[in-house]
C-alpha cells in the first residue's frame, strides 16, 4: 500500500533535495522529539526527480526543493497549492583544491585559459547563479566543464582535476577539509532560495504543516545555519 496514507497519526513523508540530506536528517530527529508520536520519513533525491514523482502522484506530505524552479514544477500542476516559503539561502563560494595549486584569488582568474575550471550547467541552480555573478563581475569565464550538479563539481575539485570552481558554501563546508572555499564580493548577486511547502494532497496534512513550520522556526534555522546556509 501507499506509505504514509494510513492512520499512524504522526507519520509524514518529506521529499527533500539531496543537498539537504544532512541538515534535514537532523531536523527530522529534532521534530520527532518535539512532536512525540510523530515519525518523519525522508526521500532524498534530485529536486527535479522529486518534482516528477510528486507530479505523478507520489504519496508525499512535504516538498523541500533546492531551487524555486523545481518548486514551480509542482505548483504549476497544482500538486502544491500553498504558497511555498523560503527556509534557507545559499551563496556561492570559490572552491579550490587543498593548497590552491592554481593560485586562484578571485573571479577574474576564471577567465584564464590555462586553468582548469568547473562550473555547474546553466540548467541547474548553481549554474544559473554562477552566470549571474559572472555577468555582474564582467568576467568572461572559460570553463572546461559544465557539471550537472554541485557534487560532481566538488568531486573534481577535491581530486585536483580542476583548479577552481564555483559552488555553494554549504557544499564547501560539507566537503570538510578536502577543498578550500573563498568568499567573493559578487556572490551577493546570486543568492539561491530553498523553498518548502506542504503538498495539496498530503496524506497527513496537519503534521506536514507542523513540519514546514518547524523548518521555518528558529530551531530549524539554527540547524541550517550550522550546515552553512544563510537565513532567508
Amino acid at each position, binding site marked *: 500500500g*501507499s506509505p504514509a496514507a494510513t492512520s499512524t497519526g504522526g507519520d509524514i513523508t518529506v521529499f527533500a533535495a539531496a543537498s539537504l*540530506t*544532512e541538515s534535514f536528517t537532523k531536523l527530522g530527529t529534532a521534530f520527532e522529539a518535539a512532536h512525540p508520536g510523530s515519525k518523519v520519513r*525522508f526521500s532524498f*533525491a534530485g529536486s527535479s526527480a522529486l518534482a*516528477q514523482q510528486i507530479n505523478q502522484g*507520489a504519496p508525499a506530505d512535504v516538498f523541500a526543493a533546492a531551487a524555486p524552479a523545481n518548486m514551480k514544477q509542482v505548483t504549476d500542476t497544482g500538486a502544491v497549492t500553498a504558497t511555498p516559503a523560503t527556509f534557507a539561502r545559499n551563496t556561492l563560494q570559490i572552491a579550490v583544491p587543498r593548497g590552491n595549486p592554481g593560485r586562484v584569488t578571485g573571479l577574474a582568474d576564471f577567465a584564464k585559459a590555462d586553468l582548469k575550471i568547473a562550473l555547474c550547467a546553466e540548467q541547474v541552480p548553481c549554474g544559473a547563479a554562477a552566470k549571474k555573478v559572472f555577468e555582474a563581475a564582467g568576467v568572461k569565464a572559460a570553463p572546461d566543464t559544465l557539471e550537472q550538479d554541485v*557534487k560532481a563539481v566538488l568531486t573534481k575539485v577535491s581530486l585536483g582535476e580542476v583548479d577552481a570552481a564555483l559552488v555553494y558554501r554549504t557544499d564547501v563546508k560539507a566537503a570538510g577539509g578536502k577543498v578550500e572555499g573563498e568568499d567573493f564580493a559578487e556572490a551577493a548577486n546570486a543568492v539561491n532560495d530553498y523553498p518548502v511547502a506542504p503538498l495539496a494532497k498530503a496524506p497527513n496534512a496537519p503534521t506536514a504543516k507542523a513540519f514546514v513550520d518547524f523548518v521555518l522556526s528558529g530551531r530549524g534555522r539554527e540547524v541550517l545555519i550550522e550546515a552553512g546556509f544563510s537565513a532567508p
Partner: protein
Amino acid sequence: MRSRLPVVLVLPAVIGLVFLLVPLAGLLINAPWATLPAQLFSQEVGQALRLSLICASLATVVCLVLGVPLAWLLARSDLPGRGVLRALVTVPLVLPPVVGGVALLLVLGRRGVVGQYLDQWFGISLPFTTAGVVLAEAFVAMPFLVISVEGALRAADPRYEEAAATLGASRWLTFRRVTLPGVMPGVIAGTVLCWARALGEFGATITFAGNFPGRTTTMPLAVYLALETDPDAAIVLSIVLLLVSVAVLAGLRDKWISGPS
C-alpha cells in the same frame, strides 16, 4: 598439447583486463580503509546491502521468467518485423535510466496509464515500494538477458530440436529439456549480466521507487546519498558492493558457469 598463447590475442586481452581492473585498484588504494569495518557493520549499510541483493535477485528471476521466452521467440519464431522487435528490446539499454524511471512512473505511477487502474481497482500502488525497486531493476536489466540468450539460441544447432520433435516432444518440452540445457552457458552469461546490472541500478530505481531506507534504498542509492555528505564513505560503500558481487559471482562454480554439458 596446444601451442603458446598468441601475443596478438593475449596482449589486447591483458590490456583489456588492466583497463577494467586498474580503476578498481585505484578505488581500493584511495579508500579510507579505517572506516570500512564501521561501515560494513552499520545497520543502514547492512539493510541497504540486503535489500540490494534481494531486489537484484528477484529482478533477475523476473527477467529469467519473462526474458528467456522472449529471447526464444525472437530467435526461433518467424514473426514478421523481428528485426524491429529485437531493436526495440534494446531500448531500455539506451534510455537514460532516470528517463526509464520517468517512463515507468508515466505507466505504472498512481496517475499512470495502467497504474491508475491498478490503484483504483486493486489498491495496488507500485512506486515507492520494494516491488517498485524490483520492477525498475528488471526493466533496466532484462535487455541484457534477452540479447545474450538470443545470441546463444541463434548459435545453437536447431537440428537437436528437430530430433526432439520427432521423439514426440512438444515445443515446450523441447525448449525445457533440449534447447535450454543446450544454451546454458549463454543463459548463465546473460543471468550474470542481468544480475550485476540490477545490482548496480540507480537512476530508474530512485526515480520510480524513491529513496526510502529499508524499503527502497539499495546500495547504489546509499552510495548516491553518501556522495552528498561523505564522498569517502561513498567509495567504501561501493567497495562493499563490489566485494559482495565478486564473491557471489566467483562463488558460482566454474562448472556451473560452463554449463552442464
